[in-house]
């Protein structure tokens, strides 16, 4: 199966931060051609780099391309009872797929790897994102409710909200989000990413209404693309507003309005 190997190798070796890295010994998987031959188990020391849901391994730390890649989807990571100490295995739900037995240098290293690998899947990340998306929506709703209700009961929560100076940058120009290129307008840029050579500046329109929740019946896309199930097309962020720049503007406007209100009340001498 073809893969865009050059791009994959570039992603593996570029200076975008890794989620975890270190030496591990990888068990060599042999085919038993002859029933009577018993091959001793052997291990090869490799440099492993975890980026997202991809576990790359290199012959040497300085190698310019990986020798292998494990896609961490549909797998479990468990401690294993090998004769080696500090061994753990990556096993796949697909019974036909080979398992990877890896050996760490010590207890702490083993635990750190198992923890990092167990949470590496795209599916896991997507679950957490969806949960946070829900929480944010609820937080916005209760904030909006606070604005309508009598001031006395809501003043403490609003103050906590408004006194945070970090809210100010929301009003700055948001960046256009593109796959792997984005930086946040409000100081959230992830260093080490490739800079976007050119961006379209088309995000000056006023923000639309708050995003509707994705309906339970279908995916975010309208009519499904032939040959694909909606599950395959589910986006990690189920927003009607198609870009974060719009979402950013929306929150920015709400915050700006609240600030104005607060500042006016300050002038009038309210606490």
């Amino acid at each position: 199966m073809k893969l865009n190997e050059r791009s994959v190798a570039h992603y593996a070796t570029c200076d975008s931060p890794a989620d975890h890295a270190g030496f591990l010994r990888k068990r060599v998987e042999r085919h038993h051609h002859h029933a009577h031959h018993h091959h001793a188990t052997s291990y090869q020391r490799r440099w492993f780099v975890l980026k997202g849901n991809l576990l790359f391994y290199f012959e040497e730390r300085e190698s310019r391309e990986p020798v292998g890649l494990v896609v961490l989807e549909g797998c479990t990571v468990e401690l294993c009872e090998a004769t080696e100490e500090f061994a753990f295995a990556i096993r796949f739900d697909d019974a036909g797929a080979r398992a990877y037995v890896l050996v760490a240098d010590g207890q702490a290293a083993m635990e750190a790897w198992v923890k990092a690998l167990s949470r590496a899947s795209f599916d896991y990340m997507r679950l957490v994102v969806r949960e946070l998306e829900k929480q944010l929506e609820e937080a916005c709703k209760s904030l909006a409710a606070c604005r309508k209700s009598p001031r006395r009961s809501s003043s403490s929560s609003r103050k906590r909200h408004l006194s945070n100076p970090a809210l100010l940058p929301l009003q700055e120009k948001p960046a256009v989000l593109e796959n792997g290129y984005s930086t946040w307008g409000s100081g959230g840029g992830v260093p080490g990413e490739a800079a976007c050579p050119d961006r379209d500046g088309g995000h000056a329109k006023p923000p639309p209404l708050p995003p509707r929740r994705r309906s339970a019946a279908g995916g975010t896309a309208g009519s499904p693309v032939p040959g694909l199930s909606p599950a395959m097309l589910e986006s990690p962020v189920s927003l009607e507003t198609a870009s974060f720049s719009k979402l950013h503007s929306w929150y920015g406007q709400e915050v700006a309005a609240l600030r104005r209100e607060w500042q006016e009340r300050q002038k009038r001498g309210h606490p």
Partner: protein
Amino acid sequence: AVLKKRLVKLVVNFLFYFRTDEAEPIGALLLEHCRITKEEENVFSISFVEEPERKYCFECDSEEQCQEWIEALKRASYEFMRRSLIFYRNEIQKMTGKDPLEQYGISEEARFQLGTRKQ
């Protein structure tokens, strides 16, 4: 350039493509550090950071289908999701004063931190 009809499947951050009558994919594109661009009508392309002039072009049946794919592909990378998570986490923290990741016991994980991440 010759266009060949393919079945295309987006699964997590990989775009698989198949000959229409085969069960095994011919190939896949890892969708990290890539750019999705609208080309002419019904057409979009995928290109990668280290080789921006090399474009993988896809022609759709309609403009609507083309837009759906562009939107889906722009959000398909793990890095995009990571940013979404960090964004939401930050927003929730600002609004409520609480770190929403604490309840999952993952607030200290490198992958969820805003700003510089340690290797």
